[in-house]
């Protein structure tokens, strides 16, 4: 997919994220908008995963550790044909499989996530299996920056380096906010690049909203042979909607009718 098409996709995805959050009257707005450009590039450029090959042992895996931003994932999976988009009208409704976190009842979802700090260990196991079976698939996992203090992340980071999992790529959605406030005030993890490097990872920084830069980073994976790759994506929570950007209150805020209209207007430019 060429860059202009990718840009159009991001716009469309952002509008749909808001549409379904408004429809469900629930959702993780800020963090879905911060990671959607990454998911766009992953599903439209990087992953070999398609509805047709989703049962194949050779498919690339995407495991969303920051499961609360499920709206971003569902919108992209619908666009890629994993299920009819109108299914999302049942998001968070009684007896719907489309709930507020990824579950494997939904076609295209690899793992049930939602409790933070689980995606990286599962991804390490999945990547390790590829090495054991000499398969070429790669494993991608998206982490939140507030999520990093979970100790399981650091345990898994050790394991990934120990087993030289250069088929593993973690993407850190560094939007610098969590629920209580700025991540730096809640539990500072900086300098996060040096921490991962000292654990044996190869690290790159990108602007997490620059589609070309994200694409190039993925295409240069593994950043170093024999090392797991970490992309630190510098993002803006609530990206694309002026009044949602950099704002803690939009972590799981749902726009009212007026705000939704304004957001759509901004996103259509």
């Amino acid at each position, binding site marked *: 997919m060429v860059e202009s098409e990718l840009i159009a996709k991001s716009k469309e995805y952002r509008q749909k994220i808001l549409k379904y959050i408004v429809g469900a009257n629930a959702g993780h707005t800020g963090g879905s908008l911060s990671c959607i450009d990454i998911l766009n590039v992953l599903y439209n450029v990087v992953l070999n995963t398609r509805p047709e090959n989703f049962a194949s042992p050779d498919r690339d895996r995407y495991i969303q550790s920051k499961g609360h931003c499920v709206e971003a994932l569902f919108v992209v999976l619908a666009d890629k044909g994993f299920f009819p988009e109108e299914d999302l009208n049942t998001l968070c409704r*009684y007896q719907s499989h489309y709930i507020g976190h990824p579950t494997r009842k939904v076609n295209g979802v690899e793992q049930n996530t939602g409790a933070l700090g689980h995606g990286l260990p599962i991804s390490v196991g999945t990547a390790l299996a590829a090495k054991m079976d000499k398969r070429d698939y790669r494993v991608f996992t998206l982490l939140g920056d507030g999520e990093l203090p979970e100790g399981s992340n650091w345990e898994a980071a050790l394991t990934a380096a120990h087993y030289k999992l250069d088929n593993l790529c973690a993407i850190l959605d560094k939007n610098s906010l969590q629920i209580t406030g700025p991540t730096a005030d809640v539990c500072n993890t900086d300098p996060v690049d040096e921490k991962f490097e000292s654990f044996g990872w190869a690290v790159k920084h990108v602007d997490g909203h620059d589609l070309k830069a994200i694409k190039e980073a993925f295409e240069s994976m593994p950043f170093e042979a024999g090392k797991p790759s970490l992309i630190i994506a510098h993002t803006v929570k609530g990206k694309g909607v002026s009044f949602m950007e950099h704002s803690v209150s939009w972590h799981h805020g749902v726009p009212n009718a007026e705000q939704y209209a304004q957001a759509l207007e901004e996103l259509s430019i």
Partner: protein
Amino acid sequence: MEHITTEVAKAAKPNLEVFSTTLQQLAAHDRDVVVVTSDSRGSGKLVPFGKKYPEQIVEIGIAEQNLVGVAAGLASTGKKTFAVSPACFLTARALEQIKNDVAYSDNAVKLIGISAGVSYGALGSTHHSLHDYAVLRAINNLTIVAPADNYETEQAILQASELGKPIYLRFGKKNMPLLTEDRANTFTLGKGRMIKAGKDLTFIATGETVYPALEAAGRLQRENGLDVSVVSMHTIKPLDTALLKERAEHTRAIITVEEHSVNGGLGEACAAYLLQNHHGKPFKIVGIPDEYTVTGSQVEILNHYGISETGLADTALALLNTIA
């Protein structure tokens, strides 16, 4: 113990809110009262606490194991430490810290499980805590409490603060009406509260399910002329076996109610006591069955599994029919 929040008697607020105001009043008189949070002060209604007593709140970040370990260390020095996190993460993620650092090492942490049961509704099973009574019951040296209403919440916090022993308290998010206006019907940890007497059947419920049990008892009275008793068994461990025995002797059947898996919770605790002490009675455990939990809001999930006024009334009639 006397009321320090006198308004508690009037309004139906979420128990969590009463937890927060009670804690603020404790903190005002005692700088050893410390709250530990894991990016959870918003959901724990503790933002005002943090503003008023910034020296008495410790933010850990999203790291529940660390939260409980740090809380154990704080408590070991004599601080009245409240570790506050969603019940699902607190009692699953940090279970080993609870078992070893709190219970086994006997550090008197007050573990506060917020948004418990299926309070998180459509966020799904990662966020539900339907296992907490079961896993914690199997750990020695830990009191387990699920207050039903605002009064029980206030009293539970005050008594927990003075207990000097590890304790787990579980709260939901919805507004909880008072079970009774009777001031003489006081709350004591470890002693069930008889909310309504009755000879036909007894609901033994805990936490936020006591209220629908009380509504069901009212409905059974109105529509079926049945005289149904309701007990708030707020303390699941140690269980008030004297009250259980008394109810078994004075009613024809027992139904337990909990916002928890039917496995290993209040119901099985009651069943084990009754059967082993020869008080066998027609008996039914109402809770969340052992299946992939239905999706939906908290109310939809509870209604689906019959944890509601009508659902509980139907269950009572069905049970009484078997012994008619």
